[in-house]
């Protein structure tokens, strides 16, 4: 066998040899027909970023309109369409897919030591369904929009609303099947494809949260699908089961809709909690406090999340007794959420905390999620809800969960795993700056809305009483800071792809199977199937400090 001496290999081909990984093939076809879970994760990342920009643009227009009490920028109809676009796009085409489809697709097989998900072609089909659904939604937006709000309440949506309700519902329906396929894929993958030795209680908590999220996706989404179908049938044929003219009850739509859409809130927040559960141990250099409690709490949230939907209907004609049941159950769901917050907080105690960018997002998450969760309790109280229902208090509450919680966690996770995904490091200073912008801008945007809601400003109007102006101006100012915070990562992460320093396999000295591969990972993740024989988050603060000390003395 003739062997080439090492010095003979040109620098270029040597580099080529090193970078043979899942990103190496650059052809468009290789991307559009890929069944590699990592590439599908990237496809989702690009898609949901585009949808985020669309939903964000709608939000920006609304905030500008709300600078003045008069409706001077857009008409009320346009405003209705804007908040519908914002809601539909952000909920179904950004938040619900965000962490599961981007980080989940990328990480689930790697974290459990598998070569891919169980059904790679189905995984690609999910993305195509998602994009087809997105195309329908965009069609509905471009050709005139929908003014029902993202909730599509009947009889307005089924009888009176103008616009492309059917196209919008079709888009959500199709994307929903993509969600179901993704959830199914993750459940089977996590059950059947874990590496030898990787028992359930050795799994990273991110896997636990993706698993429970998938359960919700699989069990709740079909109800949304049939509900939207029923609404569309009623709109098309004029007869339907929500139609009061034939004895139907519009509230049945709300029951069915919220049977999906309240658990959907947990689809949005659980994976965020999973990300935070990965970040906190790594940046405090300690094993996660009360691992089992956090795992059980995850399951408890997923199950209890199905039992509380009626708190969206307290001021409808829902029976007061059902209201009481839903109120009590809503209070109950705060217990497992609080368990998680306490565990993360305890983990900080005596940890050697490193304030790197992902950790800043994680800390932001804990604070904002706590505020969002506690204000949720106000709304779960029957009497208080009568006052606060459909005011800006509700808007502020769920944005603290969804944006303060989920988007912060998504950005934190993205910064944490970006070196793994791209193989590159981003500029740390800019990243910290943008994390501060996001945190500050977010609070300035949404905290005033708690006050506005408490003072009685209703949601979904383009004009308002003049005494609310000062707080609205603050809110809009905050939104512009928030926008900077979102655009900065977009810029420097793209920049890092070309100019960033090489990250190496494990820049954070994190535990977990995904960090044992090269960055970016090779095509089939692991050269040899890994075996696991230790608990998750086997961080050792003492050894860690020792290593750091030795490194610093060595350097000096």
């Amino acid at each position: 066998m003739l062997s080439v001496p090492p010095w003979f290999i040109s620098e270029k081909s040597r580099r080529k040899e090193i970078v043979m990984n899942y990103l190496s093939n650059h052809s468009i076809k290789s991307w559009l027909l890929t069944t590699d879970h990592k590439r599908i994760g990237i496809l989702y990342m690009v898609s949901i970023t585009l949808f985020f920009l669309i939903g964000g643009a709608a939000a920006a227009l609304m905030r500008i309109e709300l600078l003045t009490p008069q409706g001077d920028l857009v008409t009320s109809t346009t405003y209705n369409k804007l908040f519908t676009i914002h809601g539909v796009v952000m909920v179904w085409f950004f938040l619900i897919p965000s962490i599961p489809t981007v980080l989940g697709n990328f990480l689930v097989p790697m974290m459990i030591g598998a070569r891919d998900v169980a059904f790679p072609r189905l995984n690609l089909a999910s993305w195509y369904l998602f994009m087809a659904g997105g195309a329908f939604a965009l069609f509905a937006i471009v050709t005139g929009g929908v003014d029902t709000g993202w909730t599509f309440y009947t009889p307005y949506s089924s009888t009176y609303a103008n616009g492309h309700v059917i196209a919008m519902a079709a888009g959500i329906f199709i994307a929903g099947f993509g969600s179901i396929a993704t959830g199914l894929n993750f459940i089977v993958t996590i059950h059947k494809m874990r590496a030898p030795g990787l028992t359930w209680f050795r799994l990273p908590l991110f896997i636990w949260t993706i698993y429970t999220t998938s359960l919700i996706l699989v069990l709740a989404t079909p109800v949304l699908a049939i509900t939207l179908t029923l609404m569309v049938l009623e709109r098309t044929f004029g007869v339907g089961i929500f139609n009061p003219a034939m004895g139907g009850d519009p509230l049945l739509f709300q029951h069915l809709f919220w049977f999906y859409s309240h658990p959907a809130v947990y689809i949005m927040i659980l994976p965020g909690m999973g990300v935070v559960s990965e970040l906190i141990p790594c940046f405090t250099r300690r094993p996660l406090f009360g691992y089992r409690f956090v795992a059980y709490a995850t399951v408890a949230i997923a199950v209890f999340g199905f039992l509380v939907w009626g708190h969206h209907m307290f001021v409808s004609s829902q029976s007061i007794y059902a209201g009481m049941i839903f109120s009590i159950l809503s209070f109950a769901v705060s217990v497992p959420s609080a368990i998680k917050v306490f565990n993360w907080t305890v983990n900080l105690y005596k940890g050697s905390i490193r304030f790197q960018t992902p950790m800043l997002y994680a800390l932001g998450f804990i604070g904002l999620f706590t505020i969002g969760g506690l204000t949720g309790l106000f709304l779960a109280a029957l009497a208080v809800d009568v006052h606060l229902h459909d005011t800006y208090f509700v808007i502020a509450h769920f944005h603290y969960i969804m944006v303060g919680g989920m988007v912060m966690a998504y950005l934190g996770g993205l910064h944490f795993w970006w070196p793994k995904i791209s193989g590159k490091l981003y500029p740390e200073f800019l990243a910290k700056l943008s994390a501060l912008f996001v945190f500050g801008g977010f609070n300035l945007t949404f905290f005033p809305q708690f006050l506005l809601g408490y003072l009685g400003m209703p949601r979904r109007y383009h004009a308002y009483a003049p005494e609310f102006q000062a707080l609205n101006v603050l809110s809009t100012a905050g939104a512009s800071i928030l926008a900077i915070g979102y655009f900065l990562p977009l810029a420097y992460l793209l920049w890092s792809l070309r100019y960033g320093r090489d990250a190496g396999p494990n820049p954070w000295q994190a535990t977990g199977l995904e960090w044992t591969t090269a960055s970016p990972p090779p095509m089939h993740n692991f050269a040899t199937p890994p075996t696991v024989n230790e608990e998750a988050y086997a961080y050792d603060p003492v050894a860690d400090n020792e290593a750091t000390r030795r490194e610093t003395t060595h350097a000096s």
Partner: protein
Amino acid sequence: MQADPAVAHQFEDAAQQRDAATLGMWIFLATEVLFFGAMFLGYTVYRIRYPETFLAASNHTLILFGSINTGILLVSSFCMVLAVRAAELRRSLATGGFLALTAVLGIAFLILKGFEYRQEIHEGLLPGAGFHFEGADPRHAEMFFYLYFLMTGVHALHVTIGVCLLGWFSLRALFTSRIERLATSVDLLGLYWHFVDLVWIFLFPLIYLIGRST
């Protein structure tokens, strides 16, 4: 690297692959339970609200068609399970034959259902502008018939999808030399077909039988 070309690269062995596929199918069926379940909930809510009207309206359905169709579906499930068995025994001819028989029974179900729809539409029982009901409470009877057409329609759609898959797989079974590669797929198709049968088993009494003793 893989010894067995029938095992996809992400799996260790054929057993893992089959287990994963079966679990996936059961999860899919769980989603179907909730998909149909929401309609059953609608039925329940209005049945509770308008009990007498629902019983009276139920008596306008064609029980002969419904009963024969139930029998057809039950027998088709028998054929299906024999196809699954044949595939596991690696008998391609029997697999293809039983799958085709199941498909034929499915088609028979759909044809009967079509005649039934035709007669009901002829009697003016299709909800909408032309709805006509001889009885005390036509408004709520319309709700019953809306639920009837909706639920049997969605069910018939599932039967149609099943029939197409059955036809396709019976051809594949008849013309393959490697029936063992089809065994898992036939098994999954069987689960789907039995589920469709299952839905009908609950639909049948709720639609055709509830008012017969009044």
